[in-house]
Every structure is written in C-alpha cells, then in structure tokens.
C-alpha cells in the first residue's frame, strides 16, 4: 500500500525538527550578500486573520527562495504590543493589559509557527517589553536634547469616548479611527516631535524611491507633506500696532483683496474687539463655532462669518479692508488668517456674495472672457488692475510681487507645508512612559539616561476614564534629578507609532542592553531590502519610520538615510457573501414564504444540480 498524503503528521514532524535544529537562525556573515525581508509586525489582537497569513506567506516565500539562492537573509518577527485594545479589554473584563497582551502573543506566535514561517525567533521584538521601550525613551531623550521633542499647549483632536488625544492621521472623516466617535477640539499640553524640520528632505528623498515603492504610496506621502510656495504678507490693523499675517500661494492676486478672514481660534481677535460694540457678537460666534465637533466643522457647506469692526490695510494698495471671523478658515494651516480675493477664490467669492463685499478682478484669462458674477476665476492668467504689475503673467507676477514685498518689508517668501508636527502624547496607560519630570524649582527635567527605563507601574486601576497613570501615586511622585526635591512625573505615554518607527533596527541586534542597537550590525543588515505590508500604512507608519531613520542618521547611529529599499503593498483577501434578502431575490420569493417551501426551493435550485 502506498502511503497517503497525511499533512498533519508531516507538518507536525517538521515543525519540531526545524525548531530543534534551529535552521532559521541568522547571523552576520561578512562578505556574504545579505537580504533583509520584513513583514509589518502585527498588533497582538488575539488571533491571526487571513490578511496576516497572506502578508507573511509572501515574505516567507521570498525568504526561503533567497536563502536557497545563497543570500544571507534576515527574516524576523515581533509584536507591536502597546495600544488601546489591551486597555479596552481591561476596562471590559478586568484582565490586566500585560496579561491580555502576552497571552495573545503566545497564542499568535503558535499560529505563525504552525504555518511554517521561517522566522529567526531569537530576534523577536516585543514593544511592551521594558527591554524594548527603554530605547524608545532613550531616543526620545536624544530628540529632546536636540529640540526635536518639545512640549506645547496646542489645539488637539480629542476623542470624547476614549478620552485621549488623536494625531491628525488618526482622525478619519472627523471621526476617531478606532471607535468612530466624532472628534472635538481641545487645548491641552502635549509632547510633539518636530517632523516638520524634516519636511523638505522627506519630500526630496521620495525621488530615490521612485520605481521601488508603489507610485500610489509616493503620491500619498507627497500630498501628506503638501509643500506649497507662496508669500507671507503683513497687513497692519488700522488703529492698532498689531499686524495680521497671512500666507498666500497667490501673491499675484494681492491687488484684488477686498476683505480679510481669520479662523475662530485666532488669538488676536478677542484681544482687539475687547470693549468694542462688536465684542458680544464676535465672541458669541467664535464660541459657537469652536463648540462644533471637528467633523461638523469639516462638513459645513455654508460659509458663515461675522464682521469684527476692524480693518486691515493692504500694504500694496493702502486700501482699508474689513476683517471677518469666518467658519471656513482653519487654525493650524498657514497663519490661520487669509487675505480674501473673491474674484479668484471660490470660497471667498461665496462669502463675498453672502455679505455684500466687493469683487475686484485682477487676473484675466489669456484666451477667453470671464463673468465674475457667476463665480471666481481661480486659474492663472494676465494681471490687470494691479498698478505696475499689469500685463505680467501670474507666474511672473508671483515672483515679482514677492520680491517687491520683500524689498518693502511687507512680508517674505514662504514655503508652507501641510505636514504638522507629530503629537505623540497619549493620556493612556498601555504605552511607553515619556521620560520627563516636572519640578517646581527646575521646571521640565529629562530623566537621566542611567535611570532608564521609566517602568510602567503594574498596579493600576483601569476604568476607561482619563489617564490611569495619574491615579498611581508611587509613579507620579518622584524626586527631581537636578535638585532632589519632590517632583512629578509626566503621565502621558507615547503614541504607539513611536514604537514602530524603529523596530526594524532593533531586529538587527535584538538583545543589546547597552544601546538600542550596535551600529555595526545595523549597517550590515540595513536597509530592509523588501518591506511587505498593507497600503493602509502608506502615510502614517512609513512616513514616521522614514523620519526616525533620518534623525538617527543625523546623530550618527545609522549610515542609511532611507529605511526601506523596496515596498510591496499586498492586496486584501476578500470573501464573497450573500444576504438573506439577496437569497430571496434569487429564489424570486419574499419573506412570507413558508419555511419548508423555502427549503424545497433552495434544494431545487438549478445551480445545485450543476
């Protein structure tokens, strides 16, 4: 009798042998061609799903193939283990986030092993392990030293359900990316990373990735960084020493300014209307708009505003134009104030129409007529009504007017980015504690390197409201490293995207207890030659990882300046399904059908006989 294909027996036998013989272990071999194949590490949610299997099956085939082709390959796996689901589980069922997480890791690790994936498990990285997150803290301190990490009070996206701050990237259509609650805005002191310092290089270096990364990902990153060139122009406020600064990408339209519009959050307005006849109405409007959720503000179609009683002077024309607070101006983009040119900006046009403000054309189309009663002409053209600049093309005028403004001291050329600094503060327990101490004498004091890690206390009560760490006395209370007096610890923890911004470096030297990784080992393995994961990480994770790599390169810890040589964004595993309603439609019946009749109809379907 020939042996049958008994997969169960076979697979169990080899799992054991492979593990015993450690055939997937890797080490640096000088002079041998290396290849680093990496799949995005999973969040230990409980069980793996088919999307994981696909992601890792692709990586495994690549690793095994290249190993057989004689490459010295690195193929590690780990766990993106901090984050909210563990805390949510604790709220729901009282299990400690650490236990929940480590139990899930154990289960999922077994699932991955069962699939025969050829990982070098000796390099496993778990981000909630103090041996990992102490290096998060260490990197944070390096950033703090160099002014890349800083604290400021800022308007932030606040999820009222999770009681936490969200990064812009975590707000999807005005809602919390995890729980779908409408996000509101709130002011709160937070820790930021100055990713905007790297905007230019993050944009420029995308060129190096052309042809190696999917072009859709490159485009998404470009748009996210959102570079635009223009001018900042200072409009003096009539009867005040203050000036209103605006950023515009269209300095060629500056002669067409007929009013100014500022965001409700603009700090200058409450100050200037104080005591005036306009104060009540203006403050009332500001408060009404600010109380709306981010989502509600995002979807308002109707432009709305209120006159402040104030005028600004256009430095080029010396004309006085009214200042409005308007709902369509965003605080956080540009200067939070605009010069409104209704003839050439549709939003300004709509606003001008509503409030009876003048529309002054200063650009005419090259090859056709334009009826400014019907809408704004937003394209470029030839300048008119613009004093000495008449007849120039928009392109020429942008340069000439910007030069003129600079000469006269009315403003300056400005490159603006859509990219914001990254707010890493989370008012959550299950994350890396930010290694900062507040002392009433010495102020903000970084935890000395030799005191790392700042351990997450195990004894906490997790209720789902606010930040659990604030209630842990023995964590909160500490002494100032400088003066030795009683001080208070920072209770914010880090956005988990911090953890995943450099984990690929730690795999190169996973057990180093002296430094985050040895430069020699990282220089041997990096860059990752092939990175495989879902397209949903096109902006967040991949941009942050690039930013960290550039920072670490700058401080001499790594030689490379881009972390991922090639990126493969794998497709999804879908499954077809039909609803009960669809089934009835196929059968040509409705829900008043008798159950036995339904059963008979299903069994008699043509398709069954095929």
């Amino acid at each position, binding site marked *: 009798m*020939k042996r049958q294909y008994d997969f169960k027996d076979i697979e169990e036998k*080899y799992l054991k042998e492979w593990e015993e013989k450690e055939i997937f272990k890797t080490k640096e071999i000088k002079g041998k061609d290396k290849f680093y194949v990496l799949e995005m590490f999973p969040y230990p949610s409980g069980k793996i799903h088919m999307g994981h299997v696909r992601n890792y099956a692709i990586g*495994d085939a690549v690793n095994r193939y290249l190993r057989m082709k004689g490459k010295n390959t690195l193929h590690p796996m780990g766990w993106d283990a901090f984050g909210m689901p563990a805390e949510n589980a604790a709220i729901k069922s009282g299990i400690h986030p650490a236990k929940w997480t480590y139990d899930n890791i154990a289960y999922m690790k077994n699932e991955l092993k069962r699939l025969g994936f050829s990982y070098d498990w000796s390099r496993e990285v778990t981000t909630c392990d103090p041996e990992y997150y102490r290096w998060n803290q260490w990197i944070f301190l390096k950033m703090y030293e160099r002014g890349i990490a800083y604290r400021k009070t800022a308007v932030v996206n606040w999820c009222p359900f999770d009681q936490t701050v969200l990064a812009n990237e975590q707000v999807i259509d005005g809602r919390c990316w995890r729980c779908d609650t409408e996000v509101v805005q709130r002011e709160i002191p937070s820790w930021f990373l100055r990713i905007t310092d790297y905007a230019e290089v993050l944009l420029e270096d995308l060129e190096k990735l052309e042809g190696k990364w999917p072009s859709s990902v490159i485009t998404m990153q470009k748009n996210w960084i959102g570079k635009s060139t223009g001018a900042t122009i200072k409009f003096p406020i009539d009867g005040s020493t203050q000036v209103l600064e605006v950023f515009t990408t269209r300095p060629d339209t500056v002669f067409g300014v007929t009013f100014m519009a500022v965001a409700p959050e603009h700090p200058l307005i409450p100050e200037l209307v104080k005591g005036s006849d306009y104060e009540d109405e203006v403050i009332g409007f500001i408060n009404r708009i600010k109380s709306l959720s981010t989502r509600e503000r995002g979807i308002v179609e109707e432009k709305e505003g209120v006159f402040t009683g104030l005028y600004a002077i256009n430095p080029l024309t010396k004309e006085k134009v009214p200042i409005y607070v308007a709902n369509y101006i965003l605080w956080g983009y540009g200067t939070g104030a605009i010069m409104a040119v209704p003839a050439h900006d549709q939003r300004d046009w709509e606003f001008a129409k509503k409030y009876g403000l003048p529309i002054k054309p200063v650009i005419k189309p090259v090859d056709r007529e334009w009826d400014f009663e019907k809408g704004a002409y937003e394209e470029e053209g030839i300048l008119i009504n613009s004093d000495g600049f008449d007849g120039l093309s928009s392109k020429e005028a942008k340069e000439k007017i910007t030069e003129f403004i600079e000469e006269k001291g009315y403003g300056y050329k400005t490159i603006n980015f859509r990219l914001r600094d990254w707010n890493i503060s989370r008012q959550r327990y299950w994350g890396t504690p930010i290694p900062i101490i507040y002392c009433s004498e010495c102020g903000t004091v970084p935890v000395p390197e030799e005191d790392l890690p700042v351990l997450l206390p195990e004894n906490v009560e997790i209720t789902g409201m606010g930040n659990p760490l604030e209630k842990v006395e023995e964590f909160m209370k500490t002494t100032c490293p400088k003066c030795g007096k009683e001080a208070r610890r920072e209770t914010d923890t880090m956005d988990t995207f911090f953890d995943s911004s450099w984990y690929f470096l730690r795999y190169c030297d996973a057990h180093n207890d002296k430094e985050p990784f040895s430069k020699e080992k990282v220089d041997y393995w990096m860059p990752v030659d092939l990175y495989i994961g879902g397209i949903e990480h096109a902006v967040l994770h991949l941009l942050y990882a690039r930013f960290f790599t550039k920072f670490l390169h700058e401080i001499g810890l790594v030689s490379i300046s881009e972390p991922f040589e090639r990126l493969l964004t794998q497709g999804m595993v879908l499954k077809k399904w*039909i*609803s*009960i309603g669809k089934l009835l439609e196929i059968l040509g019946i409705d829900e*008043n059908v008798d*159950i036995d009749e*339904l059963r008979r109809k299903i069994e008699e379907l043509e*398709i069954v006989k095929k």
Partner: protein
Amino acid sequence: MGKTLKEFLEENHLTLNDNAKLLFDKLGLPKDILSKLEEEYGKSDKMSKSKHNTVDPDEMIEKYGADTVRLYILFAAPPENNFDWTDAGVEGAHRFLKRVWNIILENLELIKDVEYTKEDFKNLSEEDQKIRRKLHQTIKKVNDDIMRNYQFNTAIASIMELVNELYSYKNKSPKILKEAFENLILMLSPFTPFIADELWRLIGKEGYTIQYPFPEPDEEALIEKTKEIPVQINGKVRAKITVPADASEEEVIETALKNESVKKWTDGKQIVKTIFIKGKILNIVVK
C-alpha cells in the same frame, strides 16, 4: 402549516441584511449550495466579523494543512492584487499537493537508488527530451517570475503545468524522473516547505530543502533539438513531420517525402516547386 420565513427570522434575531450563511446554519442546509450561490451571485467584501464572511486560518490549517493554505494564497493572485477566497480554490490547491505526493510515491521504487549525471542526458528519445525541456523551462520561468516582482502566482501555475506533463510522461526513464522530482520538490520548497521536506527525505536525500540551492535551468536542455513542422501540399496541410530544429531544406524535403500521409498526395505526381521556411513550414506544389 409551518412557520413563515419572517417568523423564523424574528425568532432567531436575523434580518434580511444578515449573511445567508446564518440562515443556512439554522436550517441545517448544505454548505456547498451556499458556496455555489456565493460564487455566482455574491458580493466581494473585506472579511469582517459583522458580515460573518471571515475564513479562520486555524480551521483551514486543520482541514487542509498549512502547505495548502500557503500555496492557495500565493497562487490565487499576484501579491499586490485583492482576491476572493473560495472553497473551490483552496480545494484545488490541496488536490494539487496530493497529485505531487502521489506521482512521487508511485515512482519511488523506480527512482530511489538512481543516480544521474548530465552525460546521461545526451542521446535522448524525443519524449525524454521533451519532458526535460519542460522541466528546465519551468525552472527558468519560476526563477524569472519570482525575480520579476515576486509573481508567485504564475510561478506556481507553471509548476502545476509541469506536474501535468509528468503525469502524461510515458517513458518513465528513472534518471529523468529523478531529476524532475528533485527539482520539482526544491521549486515547491519556498511555497510548501513541509511536503517538500518530507518528499525530499522519501527520495533519499538528507537535511532540509531550504539548505539546498534553488534549481537553475540547464541551458542546453532548453534548446529545442527537434521541431514539428506542418507540410502543405497545394496549400493544404496534409501532415506534420518531426525534423532536427536546424534541418536544411533538403533534409526536410527528404523526410517529408518518406511520410505516408505526404506520399498519398505526391506519389505519381510531379513536384513543381517547394517553399521552405526554416523551423516553420514546408510547402510542396504538385501537378
């Protein structure tokens, strides 16, 4: 009179928007009917618990094994594309592995102690040459497809074709089979490592497939040594003849005129003209 569906749905807290799978479960209706309906009329969606259209990896491994799951996922589509998980697809992958298993085990006695060198493949029959060429074309294609954007799906498809050809290979030369099986197993190793390692051991090898070099094509085997070309007589194809790939016009005409089917049309006739396109066709005009 029994219950209506409406009453049944209410009792079971189901709505018309729920997955019909839940109704099938409650009524104990056969799953394969549902699969067919889904395939024909279903809507593709991302797997989600709320839609009850998930497929659990653990269940699939239990039922078909890890090798089948891996193979199916890699075979179903190029890595960057979405694909629909189907029962038919995963079963197809499983059947393929059984076919690989069976053909090697059926011939195990024949090949077990056989050794071969390249010298052995010098003067082969036409069928032997053909199967060797197929093997090395497959090796070449698998390497090319993986190196070119990791197109595992087409690489696996060509391995499947090779297995089909091996099933129709009649001559069963032990040396040729041994070479084919060794390479087949090594080519499968990145996708289905378990069955690869077991078969490797069964054909008498040591260690694990990942420790061996991936197959490289034998360039010589790729060269087509003979070619089948059509013979036209007065514009109609009357026969196909096999000739050396680089045969000259004279040699081809000579072979053609010996062919029985050709003879039928040329015997007793006068050959007016011949037109020959090397490696492609021979045209004979008779009167």
